[in-house]
């Protein structure tokens, strides 16, 4: 914790800021990329959202109160950026967010940056049918293997609530795979 505070101080000090921020990018670019990609599915859009996420992190570092871990705070920004991106895209296209998600899944087979098989695509289709909160919880727990405590800090939901959401999501996915 003290080490994290020292790192935050380096990020806020104009003399050490650039070097510290470069370290932050190197440490978190992969987990944040995976988190955003799991929500958006497409690489190019993920790249844009990841850049916006780091810019937001850089701009708002001075407002970081330290109430939560730096990791959770950054994940929260990344989640909000990804969800906002989908909403804006659906607004621009005049279709619902679900339609945007389904279209992204349909495009996966032709995507050069996707090498999944039939079961992977089926899993994505099953996830797309879940409500937004269950979808997020499932992806963060199953794909990203985050602990419930960490997901709780990021999404602001109780651990008990998250466990229930994950359990329901798993049941729905299993039912979808069996019937399709």
């Amino acid at each position, binding site marked *: 914790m003290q080490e994290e505070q020292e790192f935050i101080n380096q990020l806020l000090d104009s003399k050490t800021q650039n070097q510290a921020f470069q370290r932050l990018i190197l440490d978190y670019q992969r987990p944040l*990329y995976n988190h955003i*990609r799991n929500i958006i599915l497409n*690489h190019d859009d993920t790249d844009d959202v990841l850049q916006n996420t780091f810019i937001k992190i850089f701009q708002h570092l001075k407002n970081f109160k330290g109430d939560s871990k730096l990791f959770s705070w950054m994940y929260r920004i990344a989640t909000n950026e990804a969800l906002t991106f989908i909403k804006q895209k659906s607004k621009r296209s005049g279709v619902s967010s679900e339609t945007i998600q389904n279209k992204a899944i349909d495009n996966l087979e032709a995507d050069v940056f996707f090498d999944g098989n039939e079961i992977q695509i089926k899993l994505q289709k099953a996830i797309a049918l879940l409500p937004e909160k269950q979808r997020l919880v499932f992806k963060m727990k199953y794909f990203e293997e985050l602990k419930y405590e960490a997901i709780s800090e990021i999404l602001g939901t109780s651990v008990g609530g998250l466990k229930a959401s994950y359990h329901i999501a798993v049941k729905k996915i299993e039912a979808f795979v069996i019937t399709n």
Partner: protein
Amino acid sequence: MKTFKLENEPKIEPGFKTPDHYFENFSIKMMKQLPVNEPKIISIFQKRKLLLMLTAAAILILALLIPILSPTKSNTKELDTVALENYITYQSNVNQYDLINGLETEDIEKINTSIVLEDETIEDHLSTNSNLENLILE
């Protein structure tokens, strides 16, 4: 009956890939995009306003300090006439002989010239004064 249990199946990976060297280049690309912290620029108008406020504050401070810096007590060593007269009148240990001893001949002559008495006034005074003999003796 067909069954499918996620926890019994091998872990299903998302299957996403990235372009070659994507993460190697990302941090460099990202660092170039960071907004530069520019120094805050104060416009001329704001500077003038600041100067005006500082001047007003300085004047106010000086005005408040005037009573402290300039004492109201007079440092003069000269006695005013009224204070001197009061002293002589009410001090019991100063009598007419002390006054006479303090006067020079010139002073007495000046008093004589400034007081012009008519004969009638002198006569009246002498006729009503019971200590005439004492005065003659003195």
